[in-house]
């Protein structure tokens, strides 16, 4: 007796354009259909739950600006990871680089009280970039010089940086005013301006979009992007063709780390105004998912980050409005992402059932 249908999978010569457009929508609908069961089980009408989800993410000015607030760090880490993955530098360390960026930015920002904003904000942002880049430099050099696997070093580096930040914030740099394990408040002049009055829509969101445009230009227009694509496609072939592979990989790792560092800057200067031990609930790891869902494509990563922000904000809102358990919100996030990955698979492969 046959338990599972026999399937045959053929790779499409080219990804189907029609399906590439349709896949995210269809996948989301399928995911919502699947998620309806646990929501119903939780005692809530799924349609009402989804209404709350959409309303809570996009329904009014406050919801929409909060979704953008969530969008910013996801966009930074998504692009950070996508850039590194383009040349097959498997940077799983965006989380640690985010903390490094936030820490370095705060080192400057806390003491920048006498520097005017027009100078202080750019300098802080650059320092945060350099902090993230510096933390990414270690695994990059280990990989290129000693062939140490960067998946391991970047992943473990996250914990090293996290505990280093904790040690600093619980110890020497504890907030003297509140006694909380957080840095002193950053200088007024370094706070990212609010762009939509009466909300938390801050300048970091715009910086994120600028970085996204820069990533687009790098990949589609520059010589460096051309080199990264070649290295990602065939490292040996790229080297044989005269591309300085080790140098470009290190450079990509540094820029990737720097962009993740900007996520940290954006959270410190736009949201918290202190360096904190819980600066990120795992944005760096979510960045990996976003980069993959976005297919490493600039526009794809922007859309994936926004979708992720909608899902996160929306499921939280649904949880608040309907009382479905918080864990269920996370379950729904997981279901949507899995469905998206399956949808992307269908754009590249033809699957048919055989008798």
């Amino acid at each position, binding site marked *: 007796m046959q338990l599972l249908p*026999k399937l*045959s999978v*053929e790779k499409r*010569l*080219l990804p189907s354009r029609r399906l590439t457009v349709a896949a995210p929508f269809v996948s989301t609908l399928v995911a919502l259909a699947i998620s309806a069961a646990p929501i119903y089980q939780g005692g809530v009408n799924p349609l009402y739950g989804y209404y709350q989800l959409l309303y809570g993410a996009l329904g009014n000015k406050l919801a929409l600006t909060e979704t953008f607030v969530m969008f910013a760090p996801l966009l930074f880490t998504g692009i950070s990871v996508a850039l590194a993955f383009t040349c097959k530098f498997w940077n799983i360390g965006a989380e640690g680089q985010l903390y490094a960026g936030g820490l370095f930015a705060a080192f400057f920002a806390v003491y920048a009280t006498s520097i005017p904003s027009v100078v202080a904000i750019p300098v802080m942002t650059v320092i945060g970039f350099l902090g993230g880049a510096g933390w990414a430099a270690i695994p990059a050099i280990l990989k290129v010089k000693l062939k140490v696997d960067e998946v391991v070093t970047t992943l473990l580096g996250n914990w090293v940086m996290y505990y280093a930040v904790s040690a600093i914030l619980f110890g020497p740099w504890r907030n003297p005013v509140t006694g909380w394990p957080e840095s002193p408040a950053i200088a007024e002049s370094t706070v990212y301006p609010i762009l939509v009055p009466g909300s938390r829509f801050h300048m970091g969101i715009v910086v994120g979009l600028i970085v996204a445009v820069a990533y687009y*230009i790098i990949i589609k*227009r*520059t*010589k*460096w*992007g*051309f080199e990264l*694509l*070649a290295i990602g*496609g*065939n490292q*040996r*072939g*790229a*080297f*044989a*063709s*005269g*591309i*300085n592979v080790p140098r470009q990989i290190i450079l990509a790792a540094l820029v990737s780390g720097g962009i993740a560092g900007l996520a940290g800057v954006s959270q410190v200067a736009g949201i918290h105004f202190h360096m904190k031990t819980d600066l990120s609930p795992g944005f760096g790891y979510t960045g990996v998912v976003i980069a993959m869902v976005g297919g490493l494509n600039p526009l794809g990563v922007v859309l994936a980050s926004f979708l992720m922000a909608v899902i996160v904000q929306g499921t939280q809102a649904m949880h608040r409005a309907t009382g479905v358990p918080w864990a269920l919100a996370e379950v729904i996030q997981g279901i949507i992402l899995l469905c998206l990955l399956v949808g992307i698979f269908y754009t590249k492969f033809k699957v*048919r059932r*055989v*008798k």
Partner: protein
Amino acid sequence: MKGIVKTFPGVLANDHVDFQLERGEVHALLGENGAGKTTLMNILYGLYRADAGEIRIDGSPVILDSPQDAISMKIGMIHQHFMLVDAMNVLDNVILGLKTKGVIIDEASAEKRILELAEAYGLKVDPRSMIWQLSVGEQQRVEILKAIYREADILILDEPTAVLTPSEIKDLFRVLERMKTEGKSIVYISHKLEEVMEISDRITVLRAGRVVAKVNKKDTNKAELARMMVGRDVIFRLSKEDARLGNTILEVSGLSALSDRKTVALKNVSFAVREGEILGIAGVSGNGQRELAEVLVGLRKATTGVVRIAGNDATNIMPREIADLNVGFIPEDRVGVGLVMNLPVLNNAIIKKYRDFSKGALLDYPAATDYAKKIVEEYDVKTPDIRYPTRTLSGGNLQKLILARELARDPRLLIACQPTRGLDVGATEYIRAKLLDERSRGRAILLISEDLDEILSLSDRIAVMYEGQLMGVVAAEHANIEDIGMMMAGAKRMEMS
């Protein structure tokens, strides 16, 4: 197989193909690259499904949706690239995937059966050796054993001799004869006329997805087959002008290098190539030719010795610097070294020249696209659009793309490794003619090839490599095929003439 149709996007790979295989025959499927031979057999082996047509075995229609279906219909296929697990031994590979009774595998009786079959068909191989220890020829024998062990009555061989040495080819043919007398049927996919004429009983010729002829071997000859295959008379010998020698461009002295396994691959190799000549390096595969080419283009470090290119010291420098010395390189491994298969044709066409299309940090894509279109057209690379992924090109077009990229840069030294291996007659002829053009234009060419005919018909001087050493260099007009054969087998050394 009757009326088989298979289309891929933009390509009609099989156009109402009829194919009959009889018991106890070797049936050659002859055609250029991209003629649809492999596609047709992949359909028979259940890897692809035909868009139309039917397959009958012993008169009854069958549906083959997967290789498992094909195997159960006693069909076996041996692909160009072997499907063996390197880290397992021969025995395990042969029984891999077979259903056994009970939990414990009865290795002893499997081994006995393998030895019996090996004996019966002349497939000499030790069931206990690991796959990675075996030569390519031995691995092929394991593949054949695997198929016979599964009691295949129909065996499909896809370009089986592409990777074999001449003596291994003889062994293979002996095995095929043996299988024929046992009543097994063999489909022999090839574009090599000599082999087809030697081994087959009947020949089906495919061109552009259609059957152009079905003939008995005894009623035909090589020239006729070649004509049917390419649709015109093929010029086998290329006319060649006298060499006009210029300056020495490549000078190699005392070069040694290690293989990937850290054994000595090159021993004290010295030679020179001048403008306007082709120096051919002959030899049986695996005698250091690949390592030599890699050292010359910066992909492998020399342990001793000096490489000079146009007077510059080019020993152990980066590929980028070699390219900047205006050296063109046609690598042996087109997919692994020559091209980035998942990127568009455009990217591969300009990968050695993109720095010339700079606008600061930006790459001038419109100008680069014009350039790529121009060279793709000039070198007759067939692609629907240069934005398509390179992996959509056929083998001959991949090589033409590399040729276009390298020659369009007008290199003063061209290092060409196995430039026509695996290509059909048309592409081979085209590439050889291009190499001779470059020679007439006064370029220096180092031709490394295992195809002796190619070496003989193109080279001005012929060097022979054996176990990492040069056994001698002879002028092509004085070349004696016996001497070269002896040098290739390591039985003779000759001084530079």
